[in-house]
């Protein structure tokens, strides 16, 4: 689809200028009304560019792989477990719930309505996560979507659970620990954890360390 691909990259100039002007107008008005400061905005942008990303979720996963007690807490009381050990669920009134993938169960996250995401743990949502096709199809045909769009071909006896996020709850998936990772340090393990595995569209339990490095 070379033609379509070329078109999608040409951002209509007018619309972008319009959006830039609108975003600046809102910032300008809110600063004038003393409801917002440029510093507060810059701090958030910088946080998302430097400190927030899937590496935060990966640390949590690696801890769960090496510390059974933490893993137990992570699954039963996710927000509290993450906050007490790492302090980065970020948004106070938002709860995080963690679901564990096993050899017989695959959990997948979707937000069918508006593409909310567990930002503090996973960073910004990828384009495909926010797209109409993902929001519509993952909930309706998870097995087919995983196979055709993500190359995850699950046996029929593996149960798929799709978790649709709501305003108050964000989900993160605890992937299975890959084969051959025995004896690795927590830091090395965190390096194996991918963002997609924490959304549930990649299955680490079926992969070896060599494939992930």
């Amino acid at each position, binding site marked *: 689809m070379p033609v379509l691909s070329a078109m*999608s990259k040409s951002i209509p100039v007018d619309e972008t200028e319009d959006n830039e002007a609108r975003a600046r107008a809102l910032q300008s008005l809110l600063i004038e009304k003393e409801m917002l400061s440029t510093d507060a*905005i810059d701090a*958030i942008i910088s946080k998302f560019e430097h400190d927030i*990303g899937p590496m935060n979720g990966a640390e949590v996963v690696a801890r769960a792989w090496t510390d059974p007690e933490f893993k137990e807490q992570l699954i039963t009381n996710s927000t509290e477990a993450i906050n007490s050990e790492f302090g980065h669920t970020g948004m106070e009134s938002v709860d995080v719930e963690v679901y564990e993938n096993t050899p017989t169960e695959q959990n997948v996250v979707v937000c069918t309505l508006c593409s909310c995401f567990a930002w503090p743990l996973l960073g910004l949502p990828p*384009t495909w996560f926010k797209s109409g096709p993902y929001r519509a199809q993952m909930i309706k045909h998870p097995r087919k979507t995983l196979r055709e769009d993500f190359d995850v071909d699950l046996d029929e006896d593996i149960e798929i659970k799709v978790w649709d996020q709501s305003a108050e709850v964000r989900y993160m998936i605890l992937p299975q620990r890959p084969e051959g990772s025995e004896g690795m340090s927590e830091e090395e393990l965190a390096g194996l954890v991918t963002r997609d595995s924490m959304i549930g569209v990649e299955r680490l339990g079926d992969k070896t360390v060599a494939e992930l490095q």
Partner: protein
Amino acid sequence: MQVDQTIAEIRQREELPEQAEELTFEAPWQARAFSIVLAMYEQGLFEWSEFQSRLIEEVQDETPSKQMPLESVYYEQWIRAFERLLVEKGICDPDEISHRSAEFASGERDASEFVPGVDHSHSH
């Protein structure tokens, strides 16, 4: 957005797997829009659900014929939802938003007003 794209096609053109770790905003206005909403929320000026319910409506109203990159579509919905929230909570007036937007679009105002320490009174 292109309606007939598959998820796999969207994935292919958007990023290399190794870029997932440092995924960031495609354009400054997207970062600005996203961060204004989060900054206001963190200051407790609205409940997340108040913003989210409006975002959901904007997402549902999406016009699929639009030839616009998906990322831009999403953050434009984000801006529209936030403008409605500001107006409906009585924080901003629709006219002042469109007036101020026009000033930025025409170049009458520019981003230098956000730079700390810059004197905007032109008296220097």
